[in-house]
């Protein structure tokens, strides 16, 4: 197949000038913070509280890499993803693309060696809901020709059509001529998502942010979509920042591509490492919670699992506008002690390749000497409400 040749052809638009920067990381996120003002103008004047959606995250990404961000809603995973691809301006911290600070480049275009639009092009995004990501009144052909008109203006109509056909074939939509003439509503959910993936790849991006890209699909179609993403990763040499609340999907993707899983909780990465290590031997209590949430399918094990209490003390996530002190997880953590309420942990080495933000990974931390938090049993799962004890 001439796929590699084609991809190389797509790639050489910009590869030459970047060769000197090969040593720089593809994406280098350093102590990133994104804070939001709550409510409207007046409320933000009246109060100092900020919603700290992302609160000091550092993350590196190499070429041909997959990082899966996993967390509950409100953990800040989407905000982190958007900042990483330059869609959300950070409050503090920096994001460097091949050694160029993204927001510096945007603010001072004259002083930078690389154009902001170039950075934008190399970072694409696939959203969760493909039916709203595609313009419902335009055919697949015209949806896909827009990015080409902007980025490959040298192509004539025939070349453009040929490129579109080729990309539709990449994403397994054959006969491509037939699909090109359809409107989005004439496609199934899986096909729509493949069009958005094809559209992202048309730009020959270095990074694709896949924000819950398979969550809206049927369970039986998810593996198919992830297989396609992996196959195209090899052809186009892209990296994925894969956001999901489902550990099973994150595991499937990262395990196949030798990537990493990063677990997020209230704006911080609490554990990061290779999928096998993070999932079979979690160091952070929160990872165990997520592990519990992914059910086994073997019926006897499932029967047992459903009777197990979740390893958390409260099932609802705290308000991100008013996060707990110290370790943010301590209000739900079954292992929490006094020290956790006072001090905030950093990411520590766990002995393996993974790193986790929990004092329990340190043998000599004062955690081990401090007392357990009071009221632990009162707010257990089976009685969130004290009156319930009857």
């Amino acid at each position: 197949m001439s796929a590699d040749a084609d991809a190389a052809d797509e790639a050489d638009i910009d590869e030459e000038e970047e060769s000197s920067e090969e040593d720089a990381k593809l994406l280098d996120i350093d102590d990133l913070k994104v804070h939001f003002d709550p409510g409207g103008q007046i409320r933000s004047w009246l109060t100092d509280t900020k919603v700290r959606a992302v609160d000091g995250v550092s993350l590196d990404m190499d070429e041909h890499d997959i990082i899966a961000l996993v967390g509950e809603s409100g953990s800040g995973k989407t905000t982190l993803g958007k900042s990483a691809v330059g869609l959300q301006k950070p409050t503090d911290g920096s994001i460097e693309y091949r050694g160029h600070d993204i927001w510096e480049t945007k603010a001072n275009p004259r002083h930078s060696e690389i154009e902001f639009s170039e950075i934008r092009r190399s970072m694409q995004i696939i959203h969760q809901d493909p039916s709203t990501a595609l313009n419902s009144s335009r055919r697949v052909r015209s949806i896909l020709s827009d990015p080409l008109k902007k980025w490959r203006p040298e192509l004539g109509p025939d070349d453009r059509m040929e490129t579109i056909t080729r990309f539709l074939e990449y994403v397994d939509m054959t006969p491509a001529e037939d699909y090109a003439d359809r409107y989005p509503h004439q496609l199934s959910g899986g096909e729509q998502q493949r069009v958005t993936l094809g559209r992202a790849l048309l730009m020959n991006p270095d990074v694709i942010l896949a924000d819950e890209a398979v969550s809206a699909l049927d369970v039986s179609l998810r593996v198919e979509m992830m297989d396609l993403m992996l196959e195209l990763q090899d052809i186009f040499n892209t990296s994925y920042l894969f956001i999901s609340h489902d550990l099973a999907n994150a595991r499937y993707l990262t395990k196949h591509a030798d990537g990493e899983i990063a677990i997020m909780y209230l704006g911080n990465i609490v554990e990061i490492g290779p999928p096998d290590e993070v999932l079979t031997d979690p160091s952070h209590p929160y990872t165990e919670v997520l592990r519990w949430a992914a059910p086994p399918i073997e019926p006897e094990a499932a029967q047992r699992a459903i009777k197990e209490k979740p390893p958390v003390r409260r099932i609802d996530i705290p308000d991100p506008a008013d996060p707990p002190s110290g370790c943010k997880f301590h209000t739900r953590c079954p292992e929490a002690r006094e020290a956790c309420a006072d001090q905030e942990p950093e990411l520590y080495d766990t002995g393996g390749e993974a790193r986790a933000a929990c004092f329990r990974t340190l043998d000599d931390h004062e955690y081990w000497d401090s007392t357990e938090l009071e009221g632990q049993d009162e707010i257990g799962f089976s009685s969130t409400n004290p009156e319930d004890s009857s």
Partner: protein
Amino acid sequence: MEVRDANVRFSMSRGQAWVLNDVDLDIYREEILAVVGESGSGKSMFASALLDAVEDPGQLSGDVTYYPQESEQVNTEEITSFDAASDDSVEILNLSQNELNAVRWEEIAMVFQGAMSSFNPTMKIEGHFKETIRAHDAVMSERMQHVRDLFDALHLDYDRVMKAYPHELSGGMKQRALIALALVLEPDVLVMDEPTAALDLLMQRSIIAMLRELRDAFDLTIVFITHDLPLVAGLADRIGVMYSFEFIEIGPTQPLLEDAAHPYTRALLRSVPSIDSDIDEMQTIEGSSPDPVNIPTGCSYHPRCPLADDRCEIEDPELVQVEGEHEVACFYYEQSANEIQYTLHGGVDE
């Protein structure tokens, strides 16, 4: 409950679409039945049929019979069209609109997928409960006490949630409040259509665990509709698998998952990513689900089935017994185990 010959048809410009095709099914008292299928397999239509809630222009035909609990006296003034022969069974499809309104919620309640849109955004949660209680002429104080019990069982803070507007609650809290609202009039049957699909996995699992407790505490019969097979593996007593608007396999959870008989169920089990499964073993199902206007002749799964032969193209298989209550609609189910192999992984405690 009994469903007999339930058909739902939509007339479309492209022709008649059968979105529920001769479905026969019994639902036992106090069981949890999970209905599993891909999008477009007719599982939501099945839920609507149970309540005669199929929307126009859909046409529902067949029988849906509801047998109330013996101890409980159904309000005979409201429901007059009792079948003379079977004195206390209710033919759902023969009820007038008023009678139907009484049966819904009081006997059979339903929770839909989008909890976000089920509440009126300008009304406090308390208002929704009071409105429902008033509309069904129930005793307010008694019902509100019941709501307190429900909220405890669902781990909701009664005072906080009642005084909140829907937008002030998280998705998981809203969904739990909605379950409480559905149960406020103590129905016998709760039909849930993808009740957890829009939620986080952690919340999904918590709700599943709570449902089991609710069933035991309030003697409920639950019909749980989902596309997520692993989600219900621990919850359901029985699982029915739908494909192309029919049940193709139905049986108690354990034999159905461990020894799935239908090639489709086996392929489905092989394609579902689970946290413990061996990733190299996973395979997707070839092809796509059929178009409702143009269902393949014979067995509707034959174009995707590795076991299919000429007979499958012509004849439509009936549900036949595999063992006990485990039934399957396939001519060659005995060979499916060899053709499509899978292993279930479940070791939570390795």
